[in-house]
């Protein structure tokens, strides 16, 4: 039987680099004025991440969004004094026209999906900062706010629109492009802004959108201000919000923590960071992801607390290791699309990790300690959201404990070695019981035991390292293997996994990983993105006569009218 070619999806472009810093921004300017930061989007039309389109009218592609994500992340660590972030536009008439349509029309399905996922994650990070870090995002829509532009505004806590008779907010995806406003648009409209669903229906089918008082009345924006007073009114509102947000913040000196480049060592087949190693074999469609746990010294820093944390800054294990993990996951997603299965290992000493987590949890009332935990949670959500099979491999030398045990709980399966000559421990920690929620709001432990509440109950507060057998008994292990079976059984499992349909696996995993209820955030990925990704492959969008394909072309789309 023919093996599907392993190279078809590999792009011939340079790999995407997800790291950037303010000296390299092409599309944004950030200004700081005490507790208010202003992020001005002014996209350079010629600086696109892939050739073949121009980023006109403040439209964006992945490269633009990588900068935005960098801004949001750095804001929390490097500008902890900031309480309000105003997002506005440097373009004279357009706030933001959304994702670049020519880019979407000319990209592969996989690129589109990954682009959308990344932008969705960035929007969720904006909300996370607003909700948990006391950094409130405000959209100052000083021009046309269309599609992804309005979705960006929707991710902000408040939206202000210029009232000049022209500037409108709109979601024209359905009428113009035959696709969905898939960057959270539909979901946030109804679930966050509580726009009445029938009005949302009218709004989403009216390409030109809604402006002025009607936009306020329909709750699409919080207020409109005349053009001559717009900046002043937004500034006033930002100041007031900043004052309110300053109440009840976690303590600690608000000294910035700079995030230096991760500078991994990169070869043809690996990325080696300080605490993380990612290796891959594109032919075999297999990758290995290893995270090395904290040392006793790392624990000691946390135990000192306060300024000791700030002195360690970006070198703090928990921040550094998870930044590296994040970067590795993004590389895996965009630059190694053929890799289907990732074997995950957590190395170190279980008790040390448990102690690390205990010490870190004690710092959650320090702003920086809290930010580090919030960051870990976000990276783990990125892990949950990654459309690859993950097998956690608890073989000799591993220590799936505490925050690193989340990698086993988040994986699709957890294989654990039971070999007295190579004792391996597994442990929960203070962080296992709520500090690192999934995006549907549950802990990974609770999701794991969704059908076995008594087992969950039995483990409550239990942070003692467990032998393999104990762990298996407690229900924490998928397959427990002794040293004789390990080699063969895992090999077979890997081969079997790699033989299954990648599409079916993605769908299956994304369903099975999130038992239990939904939140707005999880609905964005599970409902909105899933529908969007289906529509993306339908001929009505991307076939030769499809609306997305023909946008910008002289022909008009021709639909297959059958409802599916």
């Amino acid at each position: 039987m023919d093996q599907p070619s392993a190279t078809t999806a590999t792009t011939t472009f340079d790999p995407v680099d997800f790291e950037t810093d303010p000296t390299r921004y092409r599309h944004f300017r950030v200004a700081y004025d005490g507790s208010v930061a202003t992020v001005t989007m002014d996209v350079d039309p010629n600086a696109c991440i892939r050739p073949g389109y121009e980023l006109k009218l403040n439209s964006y592609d992945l490269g633009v969004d990588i900068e935005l994500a960098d801004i949001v992340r750095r804001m929390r660590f490097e500008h902890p004094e900031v309480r309000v972030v105003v997002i506005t536009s440097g373009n004279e008439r357009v706030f933001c026209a959304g994702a670049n349509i020519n880019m979407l029309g000319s990209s592969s399905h996989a690129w589109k999906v990954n682009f959308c996922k990344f932008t969705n994650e960035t929007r969720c990070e904006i909300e996370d900062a607003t909700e948990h870090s006391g950094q409130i995002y405000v959209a100052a829509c000083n021009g046309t706010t269309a599609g992804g532009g309005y979705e960006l505004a929707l991710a902000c806590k408040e939206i202000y629109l210029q009232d000049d008779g022209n500037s409108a907010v709109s979601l024209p995806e359905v009428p113009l492009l035959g696709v969905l406003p898939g960057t959270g648009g539909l979901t946030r409209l109804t679930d966050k802004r509580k726009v009445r669903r029938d009005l949302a229906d009218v709004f989403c089918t009216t390409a030109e959108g809604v402006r002025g008082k009607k936009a306020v009345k329909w709750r699409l924006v919080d207020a409109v201000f005349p053009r001559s007073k717009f900046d002043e009114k937004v500034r006033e509102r930002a100041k007031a919000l900043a004052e309110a947000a300053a109440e009840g913040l976690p303590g600690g000196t608000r000294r910035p923590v700079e995030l230096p480049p991760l500078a991994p060592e990169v070869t043809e087949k690996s990325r080696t960071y300080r605490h993380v190693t990612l290796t891959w074999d594109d032919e075999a469609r297999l990758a290995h992801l290893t995270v090395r746990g904290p040392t006793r010294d790392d624990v000691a820093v946390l135990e000192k607390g306060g300024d000791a944390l700030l002195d360690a800054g970006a070198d703090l294990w928990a921040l550094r290791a998870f930044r590296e993990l994040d970067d590795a996951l993004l590389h895996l997603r965009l630059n190694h699309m053929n890799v289907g299965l990732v074997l995950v290992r957590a190395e170190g000493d279980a008790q040390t990790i448990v102690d690390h987590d205990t010490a870190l949890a004690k710092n959650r009332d320090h702003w920086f300690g809290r930010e580090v935990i919030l960051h870990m949670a976000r990276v783990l959500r990125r892990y949950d959201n990654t459309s690859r099979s993950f097998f956690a491999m608890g073989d000799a030398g591993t220590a799936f404990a505490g925050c690193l045990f989340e990698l086993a709980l988040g994986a699709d399966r957890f294989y654990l070695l039971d070999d007295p000559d190579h004792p391996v421990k597994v442990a929960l920690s203070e962080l296992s019981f709520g500090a690192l929620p999934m995006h549907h709001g549950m802990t990974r432990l609770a999701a794991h035991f969704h059908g076995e509440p008594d087992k969950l109950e039995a483990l409550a507060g239990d942070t003692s390292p467990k032998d393999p057998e104990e762990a298996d008994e407690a229900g924490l292990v998928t397959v427990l293997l002794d040293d004789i079976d390990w080699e063969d059984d895992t090999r077979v499992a890997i081969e079997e996994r790699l033989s299954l349909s990648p599409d079916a696996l993605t769908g299956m995993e994304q369903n099975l990983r999130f038992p239990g209820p939904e939140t707005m955030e999880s609905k964005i990925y599970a409902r909105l993105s899933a529908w969007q990704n289906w529509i993306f492959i339908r001929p009505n969008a991307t076939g030769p006569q499809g609306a997305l394909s023909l946008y910008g072309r002289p022909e008009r789309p021709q639909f297959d009218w059958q409802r599916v």
Partner: protein
Amino acid sequence: MTEVSSVDLNSKIPNNVGLSDDPKLRRALEKWLPEYLEWWNDMGPSDFYDKPVFLRTAVSVTSDGWAHYDYVKLPEYRWGIFLAPPKGPLTIKCGDDAGKPAWTEIPGEHRNALRRIIVTQADTEPASVEQQRMLGHMAPSLYDLRNLFQVNVEEGRHLWAMVYLLHKYFGRDGRDEAEELLQRRSGDPDKPRILGAFNQPCDHWLSFYAFTMFTDRDGKYQLAALSESGFAPLALSTQFMLTEEAHHLFVGETGLDRIIRRSAELEREDPNGDVRAQGGIDFDLIQRTINYWYSYSLDLFGGEISNNASDFFASGLKGRYREDKFEDHKAIAGTYRLPVVENGRLVEKDVPLRHAMNEVLRDAYVADCERALRKWNRTLEQMGSSTRLYLPSRRFHRHQGIYAGHYFDPQGNLITEEEFERNRHKWLLTPADNDYLLSIMKPVYEPGKFANWIAPPKRGIEGKPIDFEYVKMHD
């Protein structure tokens, strides 16, 4: 179904659209009427409202019927709603459905696009009245004053024509849009008019003539393109508006011609050939005015490469100028070649013809403007002046489309921003120009007399002599 019925001049709103048989629409329009009058009172040439003006009013839609002349006080002018009578069965003129019967009701799928087209056109009509409202105070003659008011009332009627469509076919949204048309104000930073040129100040008569020459001429081409629309009521409305628009263009083209003629005379009279020394308008200033208004007017056609233009054409909402003269009304296959800026250089690029429909329309406009320039240069030649005026490149001083954001000299060469700014005062109207023009533009209200800076017209209006009292300034 829209039926053009006989003209009803006696109803509150004169019309030939059978308003008396459509009480709902009549009520809506009668509600809008006082709001319109209030706008006209606030933003029209209100200082002249007690003066009888010799105006043309439409009394029927046949070619002789709409040209009825009499003295009217401006607030008593009877704006009405008139559609041109259809010539035979109407069809969709262009796009994918070319040749099929025209729509007499709005097709749902095109509703929003049509509303946008109509609102954008409608917005220009009151805007120009606002821009011109103070010009009466410096009119060079009663003849010109009367022409100004004729243009003003007809722009008001054009607004009526568009508002009728909004009320009749767009329900609640249309009524909201009609109200907003009366709320926006030319040049207001908070509620500006939609299009750039309609927010530029037009504060003296040189700009007025240039505006009616160049900006109203854009209007003519937009109306002509809309008169090819597959939406029959829009096509018939705009056809009738075109008959009025022709007079506005006449005012602009001949107004500039008369200034040029006069300047040539003054040039000859002055020992140093210095037009300004004689209180006239020098040719450099005229050229700067042409550059200024022509470039702003070019912007009104929209982007050179435009999805909207393609959609409007493809769906039969907006055709080309004289679509009948083209053989292929689908224009699906052709391309259009135009220079674009790439990597700091101008290179030729082929784009799908449908995407270049704005540019195709702009071509017709440019050719028409070139014709006027040839005429003015003939005047200069006859007058023995060696000066020749020209149209700047269509890339010069643009704020819309693919050339916006780049800098070009009037010949169309790509230059730096610094170079452009250094030459701005040579190429475009400056505040000092405006000061000078305001200093020479004192009103002349005596029948048959003309300001020093402009020549009299060749003939009067409707067979009346030039010294006819076109506006009765004293009872």
